[in-house]
């Protein structure tokens, strides 16, 4: 029985997830539009004074990115659970660890990566100093990967629950806090002209740790959810 190599299987899974995202442009554009609109709400709610805006820009940008990631991660496994695809994934001979990594990777590509790439635009709209923009993009790139990894753990644990509601936000938001702190601190440091590298290094360490451990937790979570 010539089972295809595990890597090939995972790449196919990744491609399938990306195709699904592209077929649903609203889904893909949504984190971006959500980001844009919620960022626009802040001046409306807090007042338009440019200096005040610049002061809270790092925090606001990071919080909104975090919310965008949170809201999309709830759906990562939901559709596949409802239509039975998840059962098939669990029954496949390939190691679940890698399959899960493909799901997480796809989620990061269509939410975190895109969001980081367009974030300079919104940074300009909030009067963030141009010097802080590279720090913003880098910290978002790394940080959103951690958000995806952690978010998928929450998603895997709540996907089988009929009474779950948005329970995921309760599970996951506390775990997001360190990312938020280091991410917005990195941007703030860049605004103040301090070195950014230490913060980015911490975020990078979180990413590596997450890649090593999170898929294990997600795989366990999915096995439990399928059984519930």
């Amino acid at each position, binding site marked *: *029985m010539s089972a295809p190599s595990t890597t090939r*299987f995972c790449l196919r899974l990744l491609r399938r997830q990306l195709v699904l995202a592209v*077929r649903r442009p609203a889904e893909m554009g949504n984190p971006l539009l959500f980001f844009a609109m919620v960022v626009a709400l802040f001046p409306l709610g807090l007042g338009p004074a440019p200096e005040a805006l610049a002061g809270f820009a790092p925090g606001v940008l990071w919080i909104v990115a975090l919310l965008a990631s949170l809201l999309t991660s709830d759906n990562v496994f939901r559709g596949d659970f409802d239509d039975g695809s998840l059962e098939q994934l669990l029954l496949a001979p390939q190691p679940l660890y890698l399959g899960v990594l493909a799901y997480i990777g796809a989620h990061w590509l269509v939410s975190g990566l895109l969001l980081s790439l367009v974030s300079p635009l919104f940074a300009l709209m909030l009067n963030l100093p141009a010097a802080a923009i590279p720090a913003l993009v880098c910290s978002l790139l790394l940080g959103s990967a951690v958000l995806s990894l952690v978010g998928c753990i929450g998603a895997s644990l709540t996907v089988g629950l009929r009474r779950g509601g948005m329970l995921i936000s309760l599970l996951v938001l506390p775990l997001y806090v360190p990312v938020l702190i280091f991410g917005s601190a990195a941007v703030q440091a860049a605004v103040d002209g301090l070195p950014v590298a230490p913060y980015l290094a911490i975020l990078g360490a979180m990413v590596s740790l997450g890649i090593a451990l999170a898929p294990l937790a997600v795989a366990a979570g999915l096995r439990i959810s399928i059984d519930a």
Partner: protein
Amino acid sequence: MPSGAGAPLLAASDLCLVRGGRELFRDLSFDIHRGQLWQVEGANGAGKTSLMRILAGLSRYGFDGRVQRRAPLLYLGHHSAVKGLLTPRENLAWHVSGAGDWSDADIDDALARVGLCGYEDVASHTLSAGQHRRVNLARLYLCRAPLWLLDEPFTAIDRGGVGELEAVMTAHVAGGGAVVVTSHQALQVDCEVRSLRLGAGGAQ
């Protein structure tokens, strides 16, 4: 291959399940060998689906007894596992990608055999209920796993389709595979059908 030869593909011993305060089955033991076709029967709520999920390894808690699986298996459940936004061809290609390498021609061929010729490239959510299930059933033509666990495969399938499915199952059994199927209809196959009757607890 003679029925019952060699080690069983799947051995269940002393299965016992209680759900919602009702005992669905107790001390259920059976071996499934190559060349056998089993039909699980019982009224609605008798525990057929629960049993199939235990056999497939999807349920791992909440029951007593042991299940030993000695061969790769294919499980088709109540849900069709067909993604509405993908085309039937993409769905099938993805489903069989874990088990082997199939060319596009193989896939189109399997789709044609379940009557979806001409529907390969539409979005699956525009298919009718029966066509939707047929996409999933097309896996049977490409599957090399010796043990099939099919939970109500005939749901929403028209009469012609049921006949063809029965033929595929017969062929699989004749070729040395084994099939466990739940259905409320009598099977019209020309091989021995072993029946596993789940009794109590169902709707009366």
